Structures are given as C-alpha cells and as structure tokens.
C-alpha cells in the first residue's frame, strides 16, 4: 500500500463532532441525500437495472485487467485524431504537465469544468501559484470557489450553503443586488461567466470516460458549462485517470443509461459530449489544440492488488446518498476529494493508511452502498478488508483492540460474560462521571438481562 506523502492524519472524529453540531449542515445533508436517493429510485424504476449493472461490472473488470492496453489504444487513436496524449505518474507530475502546457501556449485565463481528478491533484492551487487565473464554471463549484471553500457533495458542491448565504456572497464578491432567488442567482452567474468563457485562453476539464477504439473523451454535464469549456477556448486540457477507459464507443449506451440514473435519476444528463481529437483546421467546432493527461497516481498498483474493484467506480454518488454516516456529517469531514463509502476506500488506497485510516470509522457496515452501486463495487467487502488491514498494520486504537479482545473472551465464556455485565452495571455511574459524552450515548445496563429473563 502506498505510503502517505501527506503526513497529516485526517482528524475524522473531531471533524464529525463539529459537523454534528452544525444543525443547518445536518439538515441540508439529510435533505440532499434523501432527495438524490428518491430520484435514483424513480430513475431505475421499470428498467432492467440488475442486468445492466452486472454487464457494466463485467466490462469494468475486463478494463482493469488490461488498463495499460486500453490506455495505449486510446492514446494511439486520439493521437491519430490530432490530440496530444500525456501520461502522468503522480499528482505532482500531472500538475506540472498542465502548468507547462498552459505556459507553452501563453495562456493566462483558464476556465474549468467540474473535475474530481483535478481536485485530487490539487490543481487549482498549483496553477494559482504559477500565476494563472483559473475560474470554476460549474455553478456549485463557482460558488464554492469564490467563497474560498471546498465542495461538500460530489453532485452538489455548494450544498452546505443556504440560498441566503449564496445571495450575500454574490452581493459581496460580484457587486450585484442581493437576491436569494435561485433563478436570479443562476442568471447572475450566467452573466458573469459568459464573457469569461469567451475570453478564456484555455479550458480544463475532466472526463467521465475515455474510449479506446475511437480515441474519444466523454463528458456528462447539465449546465452547459462543460460544452463551453470544451468548445470555446482555443486550447483544451483534459485531465482524467487511467481507470476511466471503455473499450469501445459501442459500450457507451450502457453507461449512458446507468450513470445519470444512479446520480440524479435522470434518463440522461442535459448534455453528453463525445470529443474525438482536436478541431479539424478550418472547422469551427472544438478546440484548436487538445491535450489529454492520463493520470495514474497509484492506480496501476491498486489494479494489481486485492482491492482493485474500487477502480470500477464511475463516481455517480449513489453510495454516498444512501450512507447513514455521509448523510449525517457531509463531505467536508472526510478531508478528502472523494467522500462517502467509495471515498473512504479510494482515499485510503491512494493516500495510505497512515493518513487515512481514521476514515475507516466512517461506516456502520450496513452495506446499503453495495446494494445501490451501478457497477457492483463490493463496497462493504472492501470496507471490511481495509478495516482488517488497519488492525494488522497496527493502526487500530489500542482501546478498541483491547476492547474487542475482551469482548471476544467474554462472549466465549458465560462466566466472564455475566461478570462483565455485573461490572458494567456497578461501574456505570463512575464511567458516566469520567466520560459523560460517550457514556450517555450508550444504553444503561439493566438488571434484567436477557439470560435472566429467559431462565
């Protein structure tokens, strides 16, 4: 497993405690996850979802078995169509590539469409430091960017902000009149961003998929900013990761059916762009120059290891929206690009147990995530395995280890078990004095134990 380059361990417990005290965040999260969950349920009604997800899962496994082959095939075909394909081994490499390409083209103003991979590699900060002017154009990302914050939900990045807060933010930062009407605010963003698209020197976006046999990049969007970013600026840089390969353009319909339904319950997102190569000289559509960066950042290693199935993930967010932990505390507490069940697993594998093992507490092991995943990522199984790994590698808290050891002993012996019960009862008031927060959450030990009632 990759050792962490970010030494600072995620303080998940502290973060969740703070999130729990933030009532407006909790309400927003609950509302959002409930809404997305219902939409998804509506979306998959009356379609052969089980059959589709099995096919999608099988296909993604075949991709994982030949990651480098599909990467090569994509690169060859995209190059044939005029694109320039780069491979980046890690985050730093990818950042530098992007910075150098922008620099070589003399670009300063950059418009971005939502991309999780660029968040994974902390691209914005790097480009900022190098003097580029980067603007996020997805409405939610834009709000989060001008507020100087980070996304809280992968489908709705500004979910943690109320319309009132957004109204004030726009008023302060953009100098417009205050309004808390979503359509007025949206219209303001449209007006402010339109000239940015037109004057931008370069666009940067991610990809939901890339297609090996046609050398295409595939992008699902709703707002239209993805189309702007990919067709207006003269230079386009697509940053994506190697596991997003699909063997053939003919595989696309399956994922067109699965991804939007699982994410927002839509039959299809408003826009789906399939971009193959750069603009043919003299033609108006598309960028004049297209660069594609295929990021590895530890994925080849994950693909060869026991937890590789996490790489089947198509980032729909469904597992997050059914997760009782995520639905309560929201995305910020995870301190990671990828939150929720898939995020716990992927962050742990990408960043190492040293930094990320506290995230393995972010589960009730209820398994709801595994049930909804459109590509059958065995999330519950992976969570179990990584939690076992955490104990083996010595990252579990000693309290927890001894506690579990003690419980194991007691559960095997009626004598110890009853003694334990009696002790708990006797020492309860003392424990409550010592650690009221923890103990008050637990049920009070009873005199009438189950065994006594039965005998």
């Amino acid at each position, binding site marked *: 497993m990759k050792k962490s380059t970010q030494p600072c361990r995620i303080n998940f417990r502290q973060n969740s405690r703070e999130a729990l005290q933030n009532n407006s965040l909790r309400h*927003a999260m609950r*509302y*959002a996850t409930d*809404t997305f969950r219902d939409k998804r349920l509506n979306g998959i009604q009356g379609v052969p979802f089980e059959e589709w997800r099995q096919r999608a899962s099988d296909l993604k496994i075949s991709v994982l078995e030949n990651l480098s082959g599909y990467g090569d095939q994509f690169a060859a075909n995209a190059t044939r*169509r005029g694109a320039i394909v780069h491979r980046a081994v890690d985050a730093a490499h990818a950042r530098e590539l992007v910075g150098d390409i922008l620099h070589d083209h003399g670009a300063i103003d950059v418009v971005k469409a939502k991309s999780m991979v660029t968040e994974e590699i902390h691209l914005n900060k790097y480009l900022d430091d190098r003097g580029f002017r980067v603007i996020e*154009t*997805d*409405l*939610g990302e834009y*709000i989060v960017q001008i507020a100087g914050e980070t996304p809280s939900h992968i489908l*709705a*990045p*500004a979910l943690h902000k*109320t*319309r009132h807060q*957004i109204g004030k933010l726009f008023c302060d930062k953009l100098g417009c009149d205050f309004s808390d009407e*979503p*359509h007025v605010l*949206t*219209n303001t963003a*449209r007006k402010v*961003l*339109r000239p940015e*698209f*037109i004057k931008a020197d370069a666009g940067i976006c991610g990809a939901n998929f890339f297609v090996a046999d*046609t050398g*295409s990049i595939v992008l699902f969007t*709703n*707002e*239209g*900013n993805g*189309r*702007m970013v*990919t*067709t207006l600026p003269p230079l386009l840089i697509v940053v994506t990761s190697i596991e997003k390969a699909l063997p053939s*353009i*003919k595989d*696309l*319909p399956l994922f*067109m*059916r699965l991804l939007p339904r699982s994410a*927002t319950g*839509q*039959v*299809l*997102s*408003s*826009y*789906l*762009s*399939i*971009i*193959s*190569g*750069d603009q*043919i000289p003299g*033609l*108006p*559509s*598309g960028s004049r120059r297209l660069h594609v960066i295929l990021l590895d950042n530890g994925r080849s290693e994950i693909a060869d290891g026991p937890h590789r199935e996490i790489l089947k993930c198509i980032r729909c967010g469904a597992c997050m929206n059914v997760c009782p932990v995520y639905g309560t505390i929201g995305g910020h507490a995870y301190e990671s690009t990828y939150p929720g069940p898939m995020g716990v697993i992927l962050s742990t594998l990408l960043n190492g147990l040293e930094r990320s093992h506290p995230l393995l507490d972010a589960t009730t092991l209820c398994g709801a995530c595994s049930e909804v995943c459109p590509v059958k990522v065995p999330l519950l199984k992976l969570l179990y395995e990584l939690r076992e790994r955490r104990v083996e590698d010595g990252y579990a808290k000693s309290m927890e280890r001894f506690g579990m050891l003690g419980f194991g002993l007691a559960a095997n012996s009626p004598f110890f078990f009853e003694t334990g019960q009696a002790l708990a009862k006797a020492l309860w008031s003392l424990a409550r004095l010592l650690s009221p927060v923890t103990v008050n959450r637990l049920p009070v030990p009873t005199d009438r134990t189950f065994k006594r009632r039965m005998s």
Partner: protein
Amino acid sequence: MINKELIRIFMENASKVAAEPFWVTNLSEMNQILAKILENDTAIYCPNTTELEKSVQLDPKQLVDTFMHATATVEEVVAGIAETGSIVVTSANNRAVQVSLLPARHVAILSASNIFETLDDFFNGIGDTIPSNITFITGPSRTADIELTLTIGVHGPEKLFIILV
C-alpha cells in the same frame, strides 16, 4: 415509412425532460410554428445549409449572420433518440456545435426519418470515423446547485424546441 409509434415515444420522452416538441406534417406548418415560437426574437441565427434549413422562412429583419450574440438558433439536427428524448448535434459538415449552446433558445428541426429507437441503434450506425464532436442534448440546460432547487437555463439554452418534420 414513418414510424408513428417511434415519434410518439420520442415526443413523450422529450416532453419529460422539459423540451417542447411539435410534430408537423408539412413545411408550411413548420414555418407557422417557427413564426410563433420566434415571434419576439430579434437576432435569430440559422446556418441555412441543409434542405430543411433552407425551407425556413423568417422575417429577414429577425435574422443575423453569426450565432455569438443571437437570441435564438434554428438548425436541423442529425438525429433524435426515442429512448431518451434526446437530439444529437455533431461537428460533421462544418457545423459549429456552439450554435446550439450560446443562444438562449434553441429550435431544433428534426426529420422524423432520423429518429433512432435506442442509443445502441444510433451508435451501431455511427461508422468508423466519427465527427470530432458529437453532443447529445436532452432538454434545456439545468442546475440544482442552489439548495437543490431545479433551475432551467444556466450556461446553455433555457428553451429547447424540437420540430419534427
């Protein structure tokens, strides 16, 4: 032979995603509808290259030569997908895909014979060298980024009309 059932499914699914489909049986009907939809537009762009586009009759005072600052675009689109209610635009034949993006209103003319039943049907007929840009458009542009309130019309068009001929 025009498959009426396919058209019905297409229209139903397009309506579900907030597109506004019309089905006309002749060109004069098409022009009547166009006149009505575009009544208040002051800068309409029409590429005027396909047969159907050439049959578009609008008040010349309403027309403009470029789409950059147009209020509406009228164009023929290459395909419709009944399964999803989507229309498809591509960069083939020198078409700028931005014409369906920048103006706030997009009027798509779709020949009923270009409706595909499923996504697979479309991709199976796509050939080996695909255009550098293929875009599926399924309803107007939308967002729910502010308190999950659905808002139609963000960066792309706020209105999508589809006229089936």
